C-alpha cells in the first residue's frame, strides 16, 4: 500500500515538473518575432501601422510605396540620403517638418525582419501604435485644459527642481527650451522650444515612453517617466512653443567662457597668494626667528 502511495506521489511530482517545463518551453517555442521586438523597441515611438501619421509616416503597406533597398538605406541613415538629394527622402523630410529620423544601428536582416512584421500587421486588422489611450493627467485633464499650475509643474520637472519620480535626469540636462525664467538648457540633444508644433502631443508623448534615441534610452530605460510627469512636461512644452515668438534666445556660451576665464584668473591669483613666500626664506626661518626672540 505504501509503495502505491509513493508511486502516486512520484507521479504527482512528475506532473508538476512537466507542467512547469511545458510552461517554460512554451515561452521559448512561441517568442515574439525578431521584427516585432525591434519594431516595438525602435519604431513604435514615431510610427504607426494603420493608425495614421505620428512623428513620422504611417508604415502600413510601406513596402508597396518604396523598394526594399530604399527602405534599408533610409532606415540606416536618412540624413545621408537627404544629403545625396534622393528625391523621395527630401520630400519626406520636408513633409514631416524637417524632423530628423535618427540613424538606426540595424543590419539588413534585422530591417527585413521588421518589414516582414509590418507586412503581417498591414494585412491584418491589427493597428499598431504606441498610444493606447488619450493623453490625460490622472485627474482626467486633457492637454488643452492644462493651466498655469500644470505648466509650472512641467517647468519644474524640466529644470529638475522637482526630481522625476523614478530618478531619471531632468530634461534640461540635454535639451534647451527658450522660455521666460529659464536658464539655458543642455546642448547634447535637440532644442525643444518648437517641438510641440512639430511633433504634437502624441509624438512627444510616444518619444518619452519609447524613445528611438539610444542616448535618451540609456538615461530613462531604468527610470521611466510617469504618465502624469509626461502630461505636465507636454503642457510646459506647448506653453513654451506658443510663447516662443516673444522670447529672445540668450547667448550663454560667451558668458560661460568669460566666467571660466575670470574664475581661472582668480584661481591663479590664489595659487600665487598661497605660495607667495615659498623658497624666499630658509626652511628653518621660523626656528631662527624664535631663537632671536629669546634674546
Amino acid at each position, binding site marked *: 500500500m505504501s509503495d502505491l502511495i509513493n508511486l502516486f506521489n512520484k507521479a504527482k511530482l512528475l506532473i508538476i515538473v512537466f507542467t512547469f517545463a511545458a510552461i517554460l518551453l512554451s515561452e521559448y517555442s512561441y517568442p515574439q518575432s525578431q521584427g516585432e521586438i525591434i519594431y516595438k523597441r525602435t519604431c513604435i515611438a514615431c510610427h504607426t501601422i494603420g493608425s495614421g501619421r505620428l512623428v513620422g509616416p504611417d508604415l502600413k503597406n510601406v513596402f508597396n510605396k518604396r523598394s526594399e533597398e530604399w527602405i534599408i538605406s533610409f532606415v540606416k541613415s536618412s540624413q545621408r540620403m537627404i544629403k545625396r538629394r534622393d528625391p523621395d527622402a527630401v520630400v519626406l523630410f520636408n513633409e514631416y517638418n524637417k524632423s530628423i529620423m*535618427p*540613424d538606426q*544601428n540595424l543590419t539588413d536582416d534585422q530591417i527585413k525582419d521588421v518589414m516582414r512584421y509590418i507586412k503581417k500587421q498591414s494585412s491584418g486588422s491589427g493597428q499598431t501604435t504606441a498610444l493606447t489611450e488619450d493623453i490625460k493627467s490622472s485627474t482626467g485633464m486633457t492637454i488643452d485644459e492644462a493651466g498655469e499650475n500644470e505648466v509650472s509643474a512641467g517647468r519644474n520637472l524640466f*529644470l*529638475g*527642481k*522637482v*526630481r522625476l519620480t523614478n*530618478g*531619471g*535626469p*531632468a530634461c*534640461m*540636462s*540635454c535639451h534647451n527650451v527658450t522660455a521666460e525664467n529659464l*536658464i*539655458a*538648457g*543642455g*546642448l*547634447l540633444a535637440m532644442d525643444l522650444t518648437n517641438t510641440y508644433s512639430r511633433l504634437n502631443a502624441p509624438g512627444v508623448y510616444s518619444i518619452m515612453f519609447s524613445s528611438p*534615441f*539610444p*542616448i535618451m*534610452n*540609456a*538615461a530613462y530605460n*531604468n527610470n521611466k517617466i510617469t504618465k502624469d510627469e509626461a502630461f505636465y512636461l507636454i503642457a510646459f512644452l506647448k506653453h513654451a512653443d506658443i510663447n516662443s515668438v516673444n522670447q529672445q534666445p540668450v547667448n*550663454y*556660451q560667451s558668458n*560661460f*567662457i568669460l*566666467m*571660466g*576665464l575670470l*574664475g*581661472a584668473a582668480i*584661481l*591663479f591669483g590664489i*595659487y600665487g597668494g598661497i*605660495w607667495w613666500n*615659498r*623658497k624666499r626664506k630658509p626652511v628653518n626661518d621660523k626656528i631662527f626667528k624664535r631663537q632671536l626672540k629669546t634674546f
Partner: protein
Amino acid sequence: MDLLNNFLFIALPYIALTVFLIGTIYRYKGTKFKFSSLSSQFLEGKKLFWGSVPFHYGIMVLFFGHLTAFLLPDVILSWNSSPLRLMILEVSAFIFGISALVGMFSLLIRRKTNPRIEIITSKMDLLIELMLLIQIFFGLWVAYEYRWGSSWFASVMSPYLTSIFTLNPQIDAVSRMPWVIKIHVSLAFTIVLLIPFTRLVHLLVFPLSYLWRPYQKVIWNWNRKKIRDPKTLLNVTRSKNN
C-alpha cells in the same frame, strides 16, 4: 563604423584596464624606484610652480568630479536639481579645466625649452604630456559645446562605465555621442593604458599617509660648513641614515 565603435568602447577599455592592472603590478615588482613622478624640481623650480600647481589642482578636481559622477550619479543629479547649483558646478569644473590646461601647457613648454629639463625628458614624457593636453582640451570643448555634461554624464556615461566593469558592455548610447565626446572617452582609456609605462604611475603611490603621520624633523648630523667644502668632502663620513 560599428567595428570602430566596438573597438573604441569595448575592446579598448578592456585592453587598457588589463594592461594597466598587469603592467602596474609588474613594474612595481620590477622597478619600484621608478614608481615615481621623477621630480625635476631640483633642476628648475620657478616655471615648474606655474605649471605643476595649476595642473595638479585642476586635474585632481576634474578626476574626482568624473569619479563622483560615475560612482554616485544620483548625488550629482540631486545636486544639479537646482539650476544655480548646476551652474556653480559646471563653471567651477570649467575653471579647474582651464587651470589644468594652462598648467599642462606650461609644463610642456618648460620641458621643451629648458635644456636641463630637456636632457632628462624621455619620449614617453612628451607623449603623455601631449595626450593629457589634448584630453583636457577636448574635455573643455565638451563642457562648452555640449553643456550640462555633469548631468548627462551621470545619466548616460555612468551606466556605460558600469556596464564595462560588470562585463556587460552597453555601447548603444556612447556610440551615438558626438565625435568630440567619443574622442574624449577613447583618449581617457588610452591614457589609462599608458599609465604603467610613464611617470603617471606616481598617481598610484600618492603619499596619503603624509596627511596623518607626525611631523618629521630632518637633522643632518655632520658639520655643514665642512661638508660643503669640496676639499673635505671625501674625508667626511656620511651619516648612515641619509
